[in-house]
C-alpha cells in the first residue's frame, strides 16, 4: 500500500535532517521521496503527523523474547507486538535462548518465526562458544551466513582467557563483531546488587565495581591484541566507562551501550527490596549513573538498549536475591530516552540517533535512517503526549517494570515496518 506521512517533523540524524518534511512510501515498502511527492504519486493512505516527530524505526540491541524455551514468560508474538507498540522495528536477540543459538537452524527458525508474525525484524546474535559453555568455539561463519549479526556469550562468562582470545581472533578473521558482557564471575559470586551503601544497609550480597572493571580490562587487552571489532554491552560503572573511553582514544575498535534504566535508576531505587530493580548488571551509585549519562552525552556510549527481559509475576515475588533479574523494557525504551531530552541532557536528534542510526552502525546495518530508497521502517510519536505506564497498559506479556505508575512525556502513535502500518494508536491493524 502506498503511504504518505504528512505534516510531521522528520528527525533523521544519519541524514542530518531535523525539519518539517513529508514522506512518501511506495507499495513495495521503500521510501520514494522526502519532502515533495514524486510526480504522479498516489497515496492509498495518508497519515497526518502534524505536531508529531517522524523518525527511523527504533533499533534495540538487546531484547529477550523468551522463545524458544521460556514461553511461560513471553512469546515471540507477544513481544514483537510490544516492540512495535514501543516504536521498535528491529530487535536483536541474544543467543541465550533454550536451546542456545549456536546452530544455523536455530538462527533461521527465530527469524522465520518473526517473519511469520510480521511485526518487527529480529536479528539473532550467534553464540560465541558452543552452548555458551566457554569451551569450544561456535560455528561462527555458518551462523553469520544464517543471519547472525554479531557474536556473544551473553551473560555466560568465558572464564578461560585463552578461549576468549581464540574466539576474538577467529571472529576477527571473518570480520565479525563480538558483543561482550564483561563481568568477573568470581568477583560477582552470589551478588545481586551493587556493593555499596544499599548492600551494606540491606545485607544483600553485593557485586563490586571491580567485577566489571577487571573483566573490561582483560577484554580490552585481548581486543588490543586481536583487533577484533568489539562492543561492550550494558556498562554500569564510571570506571569501566573511563576505560572504554581511553581505549577509544587509543584507536581501538570498541563501542559500548547502556540500558535505558541505568541512565535513570541507582542502587537507592531498590529501597526496601524492590525486586523490580533487581537487574544485571546491577544499578550502581549516583556517581556511576551520572558518569553513564555523561558518556552518552559525550559519545563514548553511542547506543541505548532496552535490555528487555519479560517475566511472569512469580519471578519477582521472591526475596530480592532469589527474584529473577530484568525489566520488561520495550515500551519504556523511547520514553526513557526522551526523558534525557526533557531533562536537557542531550538534544532530540542525538537521542534519536542513540536509538536508530548508532545501533545500526554498531551492527553494520543500513537501517536506522530514512533516505530515498531506504526500507520504510518508521516510528511516529507525539513528543508532548503525557501518559502513565500501568500494568494494564503494557503490551508485553511481562509487566515487570520499576516504572509502573511513572508519568512519561512522549508516546508512539504509529509504527511502520517495511511500509506497512503495524501499530496505530494502541491498535495492531494487521494483527491476527
Amino acid at each position, binding site marked *: 500500500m502506498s503511504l504518505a506521512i504528512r505534516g510531521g517533523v522528520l528527525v533523521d540524524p544519519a541524514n542530518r535532517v531535523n525539519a518539517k518534511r513529508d514522506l512518501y512510501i511506495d507499495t513495495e515498502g521503500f521510501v520514494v521521496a522526502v519532502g515533495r511527492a514524486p510526480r504522479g504519486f498516489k497515496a492509498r493512505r495518508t497519515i497526518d503527523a502534524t505536531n508529531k516527530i517522524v523518525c527511523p524505526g527504533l533499533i534495540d540491541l538487546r531484547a529477550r523474547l523468551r522463545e524458544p524455551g521460556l514461553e511461560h514468560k513471553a512469546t515471540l508474538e507477544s513481544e514483537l507486538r510490544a516492540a512495535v507498540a514501543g516504536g521498535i522495528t528491529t530487535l536483536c536477540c541474544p543467543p541465550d535462548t533454550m536451546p542456545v543459538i549456536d546452530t544455523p537452524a536455530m538462527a533461521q527458525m527465530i527469524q522465520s518465526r518473526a517473519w511469520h508474525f510480521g511485526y518487527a525484524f529480529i536479528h539473532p546474535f550467534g553464540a560465541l562458544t558452543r552452548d555458551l559453555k566457554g569451551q569450544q568455539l561456535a560455528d561462527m561463519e555458518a551462523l553469520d551466513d544464517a543471519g547472525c549479526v554479531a557474536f556473544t556469550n551473553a551473560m555466560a562468562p568465558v572464564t578461560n582467557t585463552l578461549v576468549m582470545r581464540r574466539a576474538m581472533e577467529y571472529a576477527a578473521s571473518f570480520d565479525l563483531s563480538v558483543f561482550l558482557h564483561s563481568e568477573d564471575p568470581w568477583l560477582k559470586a552470589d551478588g545481586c546488587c551493587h556493593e*555499596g551503601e544499599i*548492600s*551494606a544497609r540491606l*545485607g*544483600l550480597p*553485593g557485586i563490586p565495581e571491580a567485577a566489571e572493571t577487571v573483566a573490561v580490562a582483560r577484554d580490552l587487552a585481548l581486543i588490543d591484541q586481536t583487533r577484533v571489532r568489539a562492543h561492550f554491552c550494558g556498562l554500569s560503572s564510571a570506571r569501566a566507562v573511563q576505560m572504554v573511553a581511553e581505549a577509544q582514544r587509543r584507536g581501538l575498535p570498541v563501542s559500548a551501550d547502556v540500558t535505558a534504566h541505568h541512565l535513570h535508576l541507582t542502587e537507592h531505587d531498590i529501597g526496601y*527490596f524492590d525486586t523490580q530493580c533487581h537487574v544485571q548488571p546491577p544499578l550502581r551509585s549516583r556517581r556511576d549513573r551520572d558518569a553513564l549519562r555523561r558518556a552518552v552525552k559525550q559519545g563514548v556510549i553511542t547506543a541505548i538498549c532496552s535490555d528487555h527481559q519479560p517475566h511472569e509475576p*512469580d519471578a519477582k515475588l521472591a*526475596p*530480592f536475591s532469589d527474584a529473577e533479574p530484568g525489566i520488561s523494557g520495550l515500551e519504556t525504551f523511547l520514553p526513557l530516552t526522551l526523558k534525557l531530552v526533557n531533562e536537557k541532557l542531550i538534544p532530540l536528534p542525538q537521542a534519536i540517533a542513540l536509538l536508530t542510526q548508532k545501533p545500526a552502525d554498531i551492527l553494520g546495518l543500513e537501517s536506522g535512517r530514512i533516505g530515498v530508497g531506504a526500507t520504510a521502517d518508521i516510528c511516529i510519536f507525539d513528543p508532548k503526549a503525557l501518559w502513565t505506564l500501568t500494568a494494564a497498559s503494557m503490551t508485553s506479556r511481562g509487566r515487570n517494570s520499576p516504572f509502573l505508575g511513572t508519568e512519561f512525556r512522549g508516546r508512539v502513535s504509529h509504527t511502520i515496518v517495511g511500509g506497512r502500518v503495524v501499530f496505530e494508536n494502541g491498535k495492531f491493524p494487521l494483527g491476527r
Partner: protein
Amino acid sequence: MRPDLQFDNNGRLKHFLTIDGLSRQTILQILDTAKSFISVGQREIKKVPLLRGKTVVNLFFESSTRTRTTFEIAAKRLSADVINLNVATSSASKGETLLDTVRNLEAMHTDLFVVRHNRAGAAHLIAAHVPPHVRIINAGDGAHAHPTQAMLDVFTIREAKGDLRKLKVAIVGDIQHSRVARSQIRALKALGVPEIRVVAPRTLLPTAIERLGVVAYTDMRAGLDGVDVVMMLRLQLERMSGALIPSEQEYFNLYGLTPEKLACAKADAIVLHPGPMNRGLEIDSAVADGPQSVILPQVTNGIAVRMAIMAIIMGGGTAETQPRRPEAAA
C-alpha cells in the same frame, strides 16, 4: 516495599520487621513493656492471658534453637497457641514458593507468624502479601536484620548502664554477614549512642559501612579502647573456606575477646554475645563466664522483650493491662 510497611495507617506498630524507621520513643515503649514482663517469668504461674485464643506460627526456614525456643516460650507465656514449623526440611524442599507456604498456613487462620529465612528481605516480602489481620515478626532475614535480637541487646545494655546516650559501644566480628550487627547499629543509633565502632578485618566489613554512621577499626585493641559495651558476634565456621579469614588461630589471636584485650575497654565495660558462642574462636571462656559478661541475662531478657513485641503488635499492652476483646467477626 516500604519501611513503613510495619506501621498501620494510624502509625501504630503492626509488624516487627526492622529497627529502621522506629523512633526512640517506640523503642523505649517496647523496652518499658518488656520490663513489665520480666516479673511474669519469676512468678509461680508464668502466664498472662494477653494472646489467649491466638495462633502463633514459628516459621523457620533456617535452623535455630535459641531464637525459636525463646519465641515459643514468649508466646506461651502470653497464652497463645504455638506451632513450630521447620520449613527447611518440608515444603521448601518440595519446590513450594515462599509465598505459597505462607498462604497455606494463613488459610489455617494464623494470627502471627514469626519468620526466619536465609534471604534478606523475606520478612518484608511476606508482610507485603498477608491479609491485614495477620502480623509478622522478623526473626532474622539473611544478613539484613534481626530486630528482636537487637532489642534484647539494648534492653540488656539499658539494664546494666541506664541511659545509652553517653556510651561508647564496640561491635566485634563478622559484620559483613551479620543481621544482628545491622540491627544493633540501628537500635543503638535510634537510642542516641554517640559512638559506635565496628571491629573486624576488612574482609568481614561491608564496603561503605561508614555510611551507616559507625567507625571501623581493624585493630581490636584500638577499637575497644575506652568503650562501655563490647558486643561480640558469632563467627560462622564456613567463613574460612570463603577466603575471608586464614585460620581459627589467627582469628582468635587478632579478634578473639580475651581478658587481656577486654582490659582495653573501661573497667566496668559489659560483654554481650547473641549466641551460640564459639569458645576459643571469638571469645575466651574466661570472658564468657567472667564478671563482665551479661550473656546469660541476654537470654532471659530475650523472652520478656519478645513477649513485649508480640503483645504490642497484637494490640495488647503491658502485663498489667487486660487483653482487648477481639472484634466481633462480621
